[in-house]
């Protein structure tokens, strides 16, 4: 009997709410109490539901926009570790909601699988992930003009530290520098230009290119930092490349994240990107000591990802997809919108808010929604 009442409750309540009920419910419960309880929870839940017509969008916008004035402009903030600077505060929120592709501080949090998460080879792993370029391990470059050769003195100690041997280096260079014969011997690296033609300046250019050539690691990851977090080692990185990092066998794919929303969208899909938007905005708001309900962030994230692609809240993103011409025109670049609308003969159905404000009519949200016949005057 007790379980009947609760089962019924489970069906009416959304999953998240019921989970809380189950957690807090005392184990022993008499039938009548259970019934009473179920009724009470159902009643309270019913009383808390949103009413039809509620303009949840504007409430969400207010809830995020209003604390914006209280946020600090402090661009950099320590993300838990004093060695790491990450964009925080208002600039970060703007960055996320704009849907910017290039972040000012891309960052990854790489979780590891056991036994690595317990600290085994942590340094070695971290260095494997970091992007290593040729000039990181070479001390000196010289050009042999006569033979069209570039010689580089390798820093063997550093190579050992990074765990790079000659074979790895040769293979990597073959990949990044085509048209060059690579020869690694002892402490020197000799690169012979295959093509017979080519003046000194070309060789010089090649040298500069080679300096920056990629040897090992994950492209874009410029800095790595192993950190102990809740009894396990986590690698924090500067620069982000989720796809590549997830290919390493020691990385725990399930928990590793980045703060680059587009990368998440690309590798993990739109739902993950939506969650990332929520998480990232929430993180900022939390560190600022502000209180904004998660539902507002959900709504914003849902709007940004409703079309299956992450779009920013800008005139090129979400606003452009509005169905009403006047709503678009009232935001930014009105002339452009009006011209395009005239070319296509668009019709405005006056279904959203601004158009009705323009025409001095009640807006179709909230109490403007139900139509009642009444006599004025």
């Amino acid at each position, binding site marked *: 009997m007790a379980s009947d009442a609760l089962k019924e409750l489970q069906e009416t309540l959304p999953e*998240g*709410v019921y989970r809380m009920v189950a957690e*807090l*419910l*005392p184990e022993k419960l008499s039938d009548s*109490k259970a019934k*009473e*309880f179920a009724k*009470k929870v159902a009643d309270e839940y019913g009383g*808390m*539901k*949103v*009413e*039809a017509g*509620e*303009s*949840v*969008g*504007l*409430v*969400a*916008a*207010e809830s*995020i*926009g*209003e*604390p*914006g*004035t209280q946020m*600090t*402009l402090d661009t*950099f903030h320590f993300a838990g570790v*004093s060695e790491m600077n990450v964009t925080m505060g*208002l600039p970060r929120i*703007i960055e996320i*909601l704009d849907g910017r592709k290039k972040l000012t501080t891309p960052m990854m949090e790489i979780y590891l699988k056991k036994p690595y998460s317990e600290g085994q080879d942590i340094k070695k792993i971290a260095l494997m992930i970091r992007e290593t370029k040729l000039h990181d391990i070479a001390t000196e470059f010289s050009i042999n003009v006569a033979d069209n050769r570039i010689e580089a003195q390798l820093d063997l100690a550093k190579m050992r530290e990074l765990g790079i041997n000659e074979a790895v280096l040769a293979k990597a260079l073959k990949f990044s520098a085509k048209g060059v014969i690579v020869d690694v011997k002892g402490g020197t690296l000799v690169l012979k230009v295959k093509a017979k033609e080519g003046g000194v300046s070309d060789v010089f250019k090649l040298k500069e290119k080679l300096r920056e050539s990629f040897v090992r690691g994950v492209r874009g990851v410029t800095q790595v930092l192993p950190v102990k977090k809740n009894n396990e080692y986590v690698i924090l990185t500067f620069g982000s490349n989720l796809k590549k990092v997830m290919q390493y066998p020691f990385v725990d794919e399930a928990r590793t994240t980045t703060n680059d929303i587009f990368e998440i969208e690309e590798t993990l899909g739109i739902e993950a990107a939506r969650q990332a938007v929520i998480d990232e905005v929430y993180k900022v708001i939390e560190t600022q000591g502000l209180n*904004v*309900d*998660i*539902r507002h962030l959900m*709504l914003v994230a*849902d709007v940004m990802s*409703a079309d299956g692609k992450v779009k920013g809240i*800008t005139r090129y993103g979400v*606003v*452009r997809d*509005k*169905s009403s011409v006047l*709503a678009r025109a*009232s935001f930014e670049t009105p*002339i452009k919108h*009006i011209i395009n609308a005239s070319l*296509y*003969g668009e019709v405005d159905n006056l279904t959203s*808010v601004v158009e009705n*404000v*323009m025409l001095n009519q009640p807006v179709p*949200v*909230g109490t403007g929604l139900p139509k009642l016949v*009444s006599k004025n005057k």
Partner: protein
Amino acid sequence: MILTLLRYTCRDCSRILLPTARIEQYCDRLKRLGKDKGPDVMRKKLKDIITASKSSGKCPHCKAKQKKIMLEKPSTFFEDDKRISPIEIRSRFEKLNDGDIELFGLNPAAVRPEWMILTVLPIPPVTMRPSITLETGERSEDDLTHKLGDIVRINQRLFENINAGAPEIIVEDLWDLLQYHITTFFDNDVAQLPPARHRSGQPLKTLSERIKSKEGRIRHNLTGKRTNFSARTVISPDPMLGLSEVGVPDIMAMKLTVPERVTEWNINYLKEFVRKGPKSYPGANYVVRPDGKKKKLTDDTVEASVEELQPGYIVERHLMDGDIAMFNRQPSLHRMSMMCHSVRVLPCKTLRLNPAVCFPYNADFDGDEMNLHIPQTEEARAEAELLTLVGTQMISPRYGLSVIGCIQDAISGNYILSRNDFSMSKSEAIDLLASVGVIDVSKLPKKDTVSGKEIFSVLLPDDFSFSGRSRSREEPDVVIKSGRLVSGVMDKNNLGEGSGLLLRNLHKKYGRQFALDVLGKMFKLGIAVLMKRGFTTALSDTDLPQEAKLQIQGVFQRAEQDVTELVAQYNSGRLDILPGRTLRETLELKILEVLNKARDETGKIVAMNVESYSHTVVMAISGARGTPLNLAQMAGCVGQQALRGKRIENGYNGRTLSCFRRDDLSPEARGFIKSSFKSGLKPAEFFFQSVVGRDALMDTALRTPKSGYLYRRLANALQDLKVEYDETVRDSGGRIVQFVYGEDGIDVSKSEGGVLNIKRVVSEVLEK
């Protein structure tokens, strides 16, 4: 657009430059693209397709050879090197067939491409370009009129020249000039053209400028509205006012009116107003006849109007106590920035509000002004009262807690009252309670002396139970059992805005009117306690005993030694570098750490030695104002001044100020302030403090427009999302954004801190 059409259609047969098979192939795809991404993207895609399939330079339909079309911006077209006249372009466009147009993102049902080339120029009527007569009698014409004048003049000259058979060059020049004037008539901001100017050199404001931007037609006139029956002045506090009241100055009340319809039941009542006329309060300013004629009341017309008054007339009477008014303070970032209050007409010249409602408006009384609007119809009044009355807005939709709470003195007062050491005689307590408007004091225990907690409990309803936390960890948890405050103190965590569930639960259980009422009483009680007991903050609150001063000095000495040691390590290169940092950064971080530790230690010393319940400490602990850190800054030391998370950096060559040696890394030379506010700052220290102060000021000034723009964009993007009757969240086009709002359909402003408080429900059920 014209260029695209010219380039990608045949010059002979005016078909699109794509074979028929390909048209069919791409048609659907393009249309879908146009629908998804807008016509701009679609056009671009079409261009790409045509360029890709353009092979021979011949039309796939009629095999005519195509020539290269160039556009010389803004409005001249060339085919190879020959100029094409607008007439010719128009005639080509006329031949375009409807199916092809559609591919270019035009809707053939609505437009024809040849319409893009005007044959006659529509002249806007004079209402759109009024001429102004100055006081001197001079007439000043509108910018548009000037432009039209130019056009007509040049057109006339062109006409004459053509008729007179002038040389081709002159005709062409005039033609271009005419084109220039017409272009600038529409848009005076075209990239390649010099803007047309007045004789004074100021650019003309033509059609497109009239629509654009914040001052343009759309944002200024169409979306922005102006209104009558509104007022604005400086605000000032009045704690004796109810929370949902607003004090309106009497002179304002005599200008603001409420229309009231005369019926046979209220005719005598309204006649009284009319008789008083506009100059004495409460009177009336206008009488409106049933035919809509408005009659102003003056001393001469009063008598006649009183006689004339009969059912059906409307009297615009003065604002009175109990009328409904919308009260607002900019920036209106919230829905709580505009709330409905009931009017109290008061003497003096400021608008008054209860200080407890400052928080939702974000108002203070350093000269803030606020606006008042008087709804004029029954519908408006009903809606204002039901939707925006202060009580209805009490729970914030942002986090589901009360946005109205006690502030400042009210918190200190309640804190002192609810502390265990507070007690007073019963008669005093009754006095106190009576002064805040509590009449029923039967809840006070029948003893001669009553404790503060017991006095506070009088305000609580008998069946109210609550448990919560205090701000300070030393205090026991707040427990309220059946309407009695058993343990814990009342501080900001429980009484303040946006924190704690105490107010939320009161609101939930007893309704908004009651919650507001209790809150108002609590507020007054807090202040009454302070008035009875006396409360101030004094210089002596920051006095320290001699040994504490010595201790603080010791702390400084040790910190200084540590820093010197660090600098020495740095200079000799013995400093361990933190990963990912340079040597210098490491040093800075370590020094900062040492100095902050020193400041914290002085803070502790101050906290230990300062009189434990001095008023300054009470304020800090209860959360009314200030923090223990502020006290430490006054009594102990101000501490390191940090600029963007670093110590103050060199402003001059190698030093922060010219009174220090070059490359001085010592604390004093880098913005550490040893002095306290009480002892006074040294010149250099004062300078460093103002550096940081200015930085904070800059920060605020730069942040406001940034966050304002973010807010505008958010509001614009999300404004038409609403919950439909099927519980889904949709936009104005009917597209579903969420199937259930917030994944559980809970309205935050009806929730308790964003959730359904199951714990409370469980305990309520079990307790029964």
